[in-house]
């Protein structure tokens, strides 16, 4: 039996050997390939499946760690993104302030706001510049958006500023579009009220209000705000005009105190009778 099998193998081998001559991919080659092909395919599929399962299984071991690592990375990048966003915002703010300072024709000193009055009734801030920096009572504080207020009390290193939206402040102002003038009084958290503007004057919501520049030292055209409401009552000669401040008094961080504007505020801001500052 063994001899028969051996003989069969030998015959087949000789036939296949003979078929190999001439380099032609003959019928025997094709039959062989068609026979082996499906087996290869099966093996390949199985091995790929096993590999996939193995990979998934092995991967599970590290998924948790990787997840933790990725979460940590995400947090880190979010933190960095916040830092960069904050830095960019700071940069934009400082750039804007620098441009303002460069354009400002008057010598001014930059001051950081270090405190804000807690009372609803009074609007004050404290800045980190004082007498030693050349600041005296009456100087005007501004920022790139507009008028901030007036220095009312000074110590060697710090000063207190009465904000322009305090009811005791009043600024000679005008409507930029129509050049109509009036007195802009502070109204606390409501912003400003523009007084003494005749009913016939052309004032509409959205109009820009700027300083009128009376007195010469305090330049005209400094933004104060925009008209947010206009009311014409039946009685009286004047309109009631509410103005939204250009300066965001809640978010003051840096102000510029104009060193040449000493006591010029008195020309612009009319103190009410009886005020002791």
């Amino acid at each position, binding site marked *: 039996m063994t001899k028969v099998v051996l003989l069969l193998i030998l015959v087949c081998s000789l036939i296949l050997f003979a078929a190999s001559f001439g380099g032609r991919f003959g019928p025997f080659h094709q039959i062989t390939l068609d026979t082996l092909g499906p087996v290869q395919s099966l093996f390949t599929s199985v091995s790929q499946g096993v590999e996939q399962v193995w990979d998934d299984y092995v991967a599970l071991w590290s998924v948790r760690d990787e997840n933790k690592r990725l979460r940590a990375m995400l947090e880190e990048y979010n933190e960095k993104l916040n830092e960069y966003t904050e830095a960019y915002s700071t940069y934009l703010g400082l750039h804007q302030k620098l441009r303002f300072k460069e354009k400002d024709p008057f010598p001014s000193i930059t001051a950081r706001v*270090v*405190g*804000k*009055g*807690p*009372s*609803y*009734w*009074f609007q*004050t801030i*404290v800045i980190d510049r004082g007498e030693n920096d050349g600041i005296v009572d009456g100087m005007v504080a501004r920022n790139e958006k507009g008028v901030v207020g007036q220095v*009312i*009390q000074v110590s060697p290193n710090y000063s*207190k500023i*009465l904000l322009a939206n*305090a*009811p*005791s402040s009043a600024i000679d102002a005008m409507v930029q579009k129509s050049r109509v003038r009036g007195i802009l009084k502070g*109204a*606390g*958290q*409501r912003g400003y009220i523009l007084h003494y503007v005749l009913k016939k004057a052309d004032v509409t919501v959205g109009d820009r209000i700027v300083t009128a520049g009376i007195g010469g030292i305090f330049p005209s055209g400094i933004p104060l705000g925009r008209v947010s409401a206009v009311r014409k009552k039946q009685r009286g000669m004047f309109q009631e005009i509410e103005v939204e401040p250009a300066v965001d008094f*809640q978010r003051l961080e840096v102000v510029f105190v104009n060193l040449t504007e000493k006591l010029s505020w008195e020309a612009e801001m009319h103190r*009410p*009778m*009886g*005020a*002791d*500052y």
Partner: protein
Amino acid sequence: MLLVFFLILGVFLIVAQTTFFQLFPDWLGRPDFLYILVAFAAYRLGWVTGLLYVFLLGWMLDVVSGIHLGIYPLQNILVFTGLKLLTESSPLREGAYEVPLVGLSYFLVQIGFYFVHSVMIPGTLPVWSWDKIFQDTMILLLATIPAFVLLNYFFEFFRSRRIVHRVIRRGSSNQFR
């Protein structure tokens, strides 16, 4: 030690109220913790110590945020005196009335302050707002409860330390007689 602690606490509150409390959104409110501290001083401290204490607080607040100097010390002294008189010589001295009295006095002080200020220096205050005053009073009342619990804890802590200290000193002095 007690007074030193309360002075440091007062300074901390003044700084906090003029700096990072300002970052709180409007809807959350900014409770006037200094007023609570003044009321607490009226309930717990003696006349001389308390008056000195509230004057110093008012003076410091005046320096950092006052426009018309002297208003805050005067207000603190009046609040202290008023609350002290009320609680010393009337049934209102009971603990249950302490917190409501803080709210009521705050409300009345705001009205009185506005009235006096409007008469003395007209046109220098924002328009009166009932909503704002009610809101502030409610926030103050809500803040008073935990604040009083905390302040009471510190007050009792330092007072007990002082008593123990006195007893020890007295005891040690007797030993050497």
